[in-house]
């Protein structure tokens, strides 16, 4: 049976430290664009930590929410791509096939989560920063759309490993870079088709919600809402 990779993010654990953001940059060869381009809205962060304030001083609530590609089961970005560069993989990921992308940017407009990023110029690494580049991830050149892949290179590696050992991928064996670095263990990754996996278990929590679920995108990222405190007795 095919896997359905999914993620759970516990907003009650997340501190907004952004370890995931930098880990993602390191793992996925995401180039920095520099101050000028960042000012022109060209910065690329496959995962970002959204911060919202509620209320006015002194009763201000601050909320953090990591947002990455939700790997929608019913993704608006997929049908609009004229060349199948953005398409649904057999394991339920929203694949982005760089070499097939012609840069219509239609997918990015269709995406309600704004998690798709475009290479307005060729990426640049001042030597020898290029020595850090992860050989398992390809470098996206100018005119190509890119986005979070759930670290598909790690998924593939684990699957090949499992296959060579004639077994199925174990739960927790695969950790995307963001999940691995998450300092509070707020993120959990796993197979939603396996009811026993931790991610499935957490996705059944009473705190589980999905981002912009009302749009019918069927996201595979589940958010566990922030808990409240009453005398320490709370489930």
């Amino acid at each position, binding site marked *: 049976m095919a896997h359905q990779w999914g993620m759970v993010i516990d907003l009650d654990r997340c501190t907004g430290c952004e370890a995931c953001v930098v880990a993602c940059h390191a793992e996925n060869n995401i180039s920095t664009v520099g101050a000028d381009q960042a000012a*022109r809205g060209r910065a690329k962060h496959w995962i970002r930590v959204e911060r919202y304030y509620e209320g006015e001083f002194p009763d201000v609530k601050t909320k953090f929410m990591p947002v990455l590609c939700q790997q929608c089961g019913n993704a608006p970005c997929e*049908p*609009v791509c004229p060349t199948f560069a953005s398409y649904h993989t057999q394991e339920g990921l929203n694949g982005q096939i760089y070499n097939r992308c*012609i840069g219509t*940017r*239609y997918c990015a*407009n269709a995406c309600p989560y704004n998690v798709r990023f*475009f*290479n307005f110029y060729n990426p640049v690494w001042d030597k020898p920063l290029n020595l850090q580049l992860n050989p398992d991830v390809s470098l996206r050149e*100018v005119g190509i759309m890119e986005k979070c892949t759930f670290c598909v290179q790690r998924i593939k590696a684990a699957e090949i490993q499992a296959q060579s050992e004639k077994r199925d991928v174990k739960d927790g064996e695969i950790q995307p870079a963001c999940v691995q670095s998450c300092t509070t263990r707020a993120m959990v990754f796993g197979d939603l088709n396996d009811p026993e996996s931790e991610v499935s278990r957490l996705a059944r929590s009473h705190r589980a919600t999905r981002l912009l679920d009302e749009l019918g995108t069927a996201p595979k990222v589940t958010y566990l809402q922030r808990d409240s405190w009453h005398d320490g007795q709370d489930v």
Partner: protein
Amino acid sequence: MTDKTSDQINRDLLNPLFETSGRYWLVLSCFVAIVIAAVFAFAWQVYNGIGVAGIRRPVFWGFYITNFVFWIGLSHAGTLISAILRLCNATWRRPVTRCAEVITVFALSIGALFPVIHLGRPWVAFWLIPYPSERFIWPNIRSPLLWDFFAINTYLIGSVTFLLLPIIPDFAVVRDRATGLRKKIYRILALGWSGTPKQWHRLETAMHIMAIAIIPVAVSVHSIVSWDFAMAPVPMWHSTIFAPYFVCGAIFSGIAALILAMAFLRKFLHLEEYLLPIHFENLGKLLLVMSLLWFYFVFSERLTTWYGNESSEMAVFWLTQTGRFSPLFWLMVFCNFILPVPILAIKKLRTIAGTAIASGAVVLGMWLERYLIIVPSLSRKYLPYAYVTNPYKPTWVEITITAGTFAGLIMLYMLFSKVVPIISMWELKAGKQHVVAGTVPLIAPAKEVEAD
């Protein structure tokens, strides 16, 4: 006009083909220069990357797609209008049809450029063509962009045919007058037209078929263009009203463009005796109707959004009504409704100058409309964190290319008027004959021959 003999008609209308003033070349070269600048800008963009344009996350579409929709809209000037007029046999249409159809062909080909210009990697645009390869990959038929690709090509082929068919007899006339190399060329273009009853009859049938066929195509094209937006779950895009809204807007801007073109032709090609106030008045009435219709669409779109009060859509709504884009929005309303309606409604103002002014305003207003559909929605898309802080601003590249396409249309038009009589001569003659006879069949000369 009725007292003009066919010789006079020939003389007046063929005059531009055989005599060219120095001023013509001067003006032409200006426009050519602008076009060249645009080509350079595009080359610059290909070389450095699309980043030289002003687009930014999440406003990934800007001037280019605006122009795309605008030009496709403009292209509804001719074919649709002239087809309708032909079918319902409006005699006054005769001098108008051709300059209308010409606009269609040129505007369409210019509009079709933009999807390629706006690509991140234009050199692989050919992947939109479904061609067999050993990789078993085909384009994605679910994508509205692919629908565009087919719709636009169909429409282009259709309108080119529709334009060329009625030119054939005029080519023949030119052929008979021209000399030397020109004669050779026009001989080929005339396809051996000799004006036999059979040829007239076939021309008639062909025109009939085309006139009927082209209308659904024209309507479908702009519906599909509208679906580029309506199919995406973006606030204020995802709306069922878009298809008719766009078609209406297209015809609206199309008529406006036609009136402008006629006004200029009349002035510069000295066609005062042929393009008469009556033509402008009638087209003006059409424009008035479309203006009211357009306002109806905008109103109902805005009303439903506001009444529905869905937060993600309200963000966009207020951004255009009172927010950063409100000046542009209200200018649009002014240009498309407040200014043209009185001018066109009051008979005294519905003069050539009046309609021309109204049309100019409408063309601008319709361009703004497209801009206001695209940019505000993308800068207010769902999650507030992704709202743009510093807005989309076009760069010199986008502006140059845009200017270049406007110059391009005029350039092509000027060149065209030098190779083809801009008014269908034989239809004019036919019209004259049968004003006398009192009956107005579609193709008169055939009857003539029978009479003999």
